[in-house]
């Protein structure tokens, strides 16, 4: 049982960007297993990113398989993920293991293309939409030191600026 400690707001380490994974070895796989165990041990979370446990490498895990009504690719381990195309936008409600007891509205792209590597270093490519696309954008934000609270829009106004995502996931 390797449940890691999850960093929570206002831990400064959550703002630190993560670096690319270079070595695809047994140690990486062991960490991935611990990260996933940590995700499953907490309140229902469909995603987790390595920096949330203080490890600043570009590793995320998402698993939207529990939501059969939404199109998704099931359990995914994404190493060095990068959004290569995005379109559409919509507001949705998000929460985060690193921000307990708070949920807020966030604008995300509704459809995207993603490339990444698997734990063996092999190439991965996906087209994602809706809920799964939201989850992956949320996790990629963690890799760039961003929390969803940095993006929350007021639910009062319904006015929202269009967010433009740079390649690699950081928004300007």
């Amino acid at each position, binding site marked *: 049982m390797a449940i890691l400690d999850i960093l929570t707001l206002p831990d400064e380490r959550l703002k630190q960007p993560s670096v690319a994974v270079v070595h695809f070895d047994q140690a990486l796989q062991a960490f991935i297993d611990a990260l996933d165990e940590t995700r499953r041990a907490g*309140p*229902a*979370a*469909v*995603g*987790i*990113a390595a920096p949330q446990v203080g490890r600043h490498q570009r590793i995320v895990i*998402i698993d939207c398989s529990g939501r059969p009504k939404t199109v998704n690719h099931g359990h995914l381990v994404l190493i060095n993920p990068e959004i290569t195309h995005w379109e559409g936008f919509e507001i*949705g*409600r*998000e*929460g*985060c*293991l690193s921000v307990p*007891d*708070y*949920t807020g509205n966030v604008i995300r792209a509704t459809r995207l293309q993603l490339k990444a590597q698997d734990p063996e270093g092999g190439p991965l490519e996906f087209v994602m939409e809706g*809920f799964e696309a*939201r*989850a992956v954008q*949320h*996790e990629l934000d*963690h890799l760039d030191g961003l929390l*969803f609270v940095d993006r929350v829009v007021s*639910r*009062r106004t*319904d006015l929202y600026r269009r967010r433009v995502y740079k390649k690699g996931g950081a928004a300007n």
Partner: protein
Amino acid sequence: MTDWNIVTLVGQDRPGIVARVTRVLYEAGCTLGEASMIRLGGSFTILLMVSGSRPNAELEAALAPVAAELGLRVHLDPVQGGLHQHLVPNIQVRVTGADRTGIVAEVTQCLADQGFNILDLESDVVGNARAPVYIMNIQGTCARTLEDLEQALAGLTTRGISVDVSPIELMIG
């Protein structure tokens, strides 16, 4: 020890109200909890959770000078704290229509009949005095299906208002 109050404050909107009031509360040794502060019409309104070891009469006395100066009506009501227990809404209801009396009562009665618990309701009267338009956004929790709610609210759309019911899907990442 539960010694929370909700401070209710209403007055003509002007800059500086929040700064002055919260300064008084800070200097009285109070802790602030959750708050909702918003301009309604030309008034500024504050609902603010306040905790402190001072008796209510002392807090009211401390607020009295700034209230008098800025023309604010203030009162305190003791409440249970209940912090860190946020409920998450699963349904959003949007209502738009030509403004007429009865919209809020009809919509919310309909929702109440479905066991809907309103967590957040905001409404605006927009347009102009000759042709006002009412826009209301409600978020809350309900165990009924979306279809049940839509059906329950369907009767209202024939009376000059449009109602949209959407799920609020929470993504925890």
